[in-house]
């Protein structure tokens, strides 16, 4: 598997194993197109948020903050 390859059934199977989530073949098929789009978008957001100018940014996990 290469870093720029699209998400495949094998990728989904691997992620399912890591999560301890059994995913029969029809479920893996279903997840491939969705994961391809959403993980690519999340990776793009990762890239932006990892930029040096953002190193001082911490996550908000608790509201409220005024």
């Amino acid at each position: 598997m290469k870093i720029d390859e699209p998400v495949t059934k094998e990728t989904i199977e691997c992620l399912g194993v890591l999560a301890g989530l059994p995913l029969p073949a029809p479920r893996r098929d279903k997840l491939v197109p969705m994961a391809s789009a959403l993980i690519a978008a999340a990776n793009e957001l990762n890239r932006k948020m990892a930029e040096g100018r953002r190193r001082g940014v911490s996550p908000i996990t608790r509201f409220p903050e005024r």
Partner: protein
Amino acid sequence: MTQVDLLNLTIAQAAPRLERRELSPVELTEAMLQRIAAVNTQLNAYITVCAQQARDVAQATERMIRAGYYLGPLHGIPIALKDNIYTRGIRTTAGAKILADFVPDEDASVTARLKRAGAIILGKVNMHEFAWGGTTDNPHYGTCRNPWNPERFPAGSSGGSGAAVAARTCLGALGTDTGGSIRLPSSVNGIVGIRPTIGRVSNYNVVPLAWTMDTVSPMTRTVEDCVTMFEVIAGWDPLDPHSAQVPVADYRAELGRGIRGLRIGLIRDYSLTHVQKAVGDAVRSALKTLEDLGARTEEIPMPSIHGNISAQLTIESCEPSAYHQEWLRTRPGDYGEDVRTLLEMGEMYLATHYIQAQRYRSVLRREFVEGFRQVDVFVTPTLPFTATPCGATEVVIENNLKEDMLSAIMQFTGVPSLAGLPALSLPVGFDPDGLPVGMQVIGRPFDEGTLFRLGHAYQGATSWHTKSPRL
């Protein structure tokens, strides 16, 4: 009063009549129950109707008011609650087969507050399963439909709340909003709904979707009615760790202040971009009305705005998947197909995806805080499109291009959810097919009062909120 007169009463119109004993809570409740019986087969807005309980409470209310014990403007007002809000002794399904037999032994804090204020609970309304979706196409309790056109969706996840209020089956309802679930159905059903600042209203004993974004709030026909319900449920709750110890403002006093001098921000290359023509036209027309009332508009840049949909989908996927981890492994077949897929998808993300999405919220919030130095509120459409056909998974916004419904529906509502800001949706017109258009107004943290003030001024100058569906 005729049956039609009773159904068209707002809370603000009914309350003084109830107080003066010119209107009986029994008569009002009975009119609503008859209306539910007449339209619910078509709309599927209610999962559970508590007819006998509502009648019993209405009779007790009548005796109380006759004896001189009037509790305030919600006393004797029939309302509905979304079915993920706990109600003691009444099943609370969250729109899920998994919770089909769940009968809570205590109320949600918001339920308890509404009961203490004298509201009469008519029933529990339909929703997208576990609130994880925006269509209310529910595989277990039936597809909820839009009263303006039952072939169209009521949006979601609080679709039952939106349809129930618009169809005049109750005078107000509670919904919940994580990424838009109050504002989206408010928009497509032509009613008012507010997402509060996170921490303003208690989430205690509400089935969660995503802990860091969930909120509860009212959906009504007018802004004034929204204030009446909001005043009752807002405020600190020691039972909810996310609840804020911030004083609750006098929202009613805000309503009469008008909007002269109010500064309205439009987010550059975003607020009026990538929307259906009718939606853009209606929002531009509403902005003109607000300017005529004394507000002024200006464009504000917000460079990081375009990462919002990915951040929202990441957080809104991962947090529910954590909550549902056990059921997803032991009862996967009991979920509807769409929700099961989304929950499985939530387990495909890496921890870094989730954390970067939470860091993005800090960036977005900071840009809003900067923007609020120049303006008092921001405006966008609530949705870039009007109600789509029931069952649609794609939508056309412009250039005949089909887009995925889940991403398209979050285009504008996800932003205040991520930034933890309050946002009001109010009706601002109709498209050529007679389907309502909504406008979203985003405010500073804990400044719901300014949103109510703007909305009330707008409704004082327009009549969109007085239109009712022909059903």
